[in-house]
């Protein structure tokens, strides 16, 4: 899979689980939007977010990883790099 195609796949799958499982409005999931503010998750929600990310991408994010992620674009980038390293 090319980098462009993989980024598109990451974005698409992220939208699906955020809309279906976290009931986030799809039009709010924009590359430049702040991920934490948009999702407005509490500490328990983060537990589930880690699970769904692992289920979808085979990557387990830590609290430190989330601290480094600002926007959705950052998240996609982070996932892409982790997949590439694995």
């Amino acid at each position, binding site marked *: 899979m090319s980098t462009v195609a993989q980024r598109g796949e990451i974005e698409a799958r992220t939208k699906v689980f955020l809309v279906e499982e*976290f*009931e986030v409005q799809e039009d709010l999931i924009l590359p430049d939007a702040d991920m934490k503010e948009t999702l407005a998750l509490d500490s328990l929600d983060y537990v*589930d977010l880690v*699970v769904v990310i692992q289920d979808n991408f085979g990557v*387990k994010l830590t609290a430190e990883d989330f601290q480094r992620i600002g926007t959705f674009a950052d998240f996609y980038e982070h996932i892409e790099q982790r997949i590439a390293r694995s």
Partner: protein
Amino acid sequence: MERVVITGMGIWSCLGKDLAEVADSLRTGRSGIVFDPVRKEMGFRSALTGKVDMPDLKAQLGRRQRVGMAEECYYAYAATEQAFRQAGIGERTFQEHAVGILYGNDSSTQAVVDGVDALRRKKDTTLIGSGSIFQSMNSTVTMNLATIFGLRGINFTVSGACASGSHAIGMGYLLIKQGLQRIVLCGGAQEVNPVAFCSFDGISAFSVRESDPTRASRPFDRGRDGLVPSGGSAALVLESLSSAQERGAPVLAEVVGYGFSSNGLHISDPDLDGQVRALRMALNMAGMGPSDIGYINAHATSTPIGDLVEAQAIDAVFGAARPPVSSTKSLTGHECWMAGASEVVYSVLMMLGGFLAPNLNFEEPDEASERLNVVRSPMDHRVDALLSNSFGFGGTNSTIIIKRYTG
């Protein structure tokens, strides 16, 4: 002492999804029992079960509220919402008063299995998910509903086997009677999934009359061969009469007696003396004699020994008074942790509707049930006071007496 009344009820069971639908099933004697082929594939001895649909709560509850809810919580939310609505209780009452919640529930098996399965698959506890712990505890119903509705009074779960729901009503009754609580939502909830019932099936407690599901549950009948598992949820708003009058709430009926006992004997066998003691305690508390009871909703689950001993207990206490008796488990199957609450709801619906639901499939009595006045078919009948029995593993016995509210 405060008088304790019922100001709201809710129900979600194999007989229907609200009071009107369930009352119609009771009045017409419609069974909710089916054959579930999945159970046969799993290795069940009996694939019979009550058929209970899952409520879709996406419109009412957000993800965070739903994620910690086990199957039985879904049923309990539906029943509780109905009960509060009928009682005219909402945000304002929750803010003005410390409304309590007591639910009978004694398992949350599917949630436990799902959580452990996730761990075995992923080998990492942090990938089980946040909902599992809140779904897995017996108190899953009370912890979730107290949070969702914002309840600030008494809040715990009663685990008393198949008498759980009845004891929850009894506890709520005592707390209100003593003036310690003004309003308590009392109920019972029971998961219906196969894993919840596999070990119960494994001790050969279930009817194997699989070819004819609606005729399988036959309490008091000589040909009974076991119970049929079922579930769902039932809820009742118990309230002090003074509170109901102050709020201008509808009064459906009055709770006047709660009897309880423990056999202290065998873990699964019933005991005549234990049941008689619970029955007499409830009558004494209500200040009633045998002839004051116009209907008995029996615990009778359709097991050979259980129904035999209960028939003997009813005969020992009520003798010549011979009030009409039926077991609504002939229609529903055994709703286990929920049964003590649902059967009070069913009985109050009969009292309010002026009818008695039948004890389906009572075709030939045995030596004990021939002494009872078992209701064979639906009948119009006025009841002014009724009694509901619930007994459970470990020899726990509970009896509730309800009477018509006459001011």
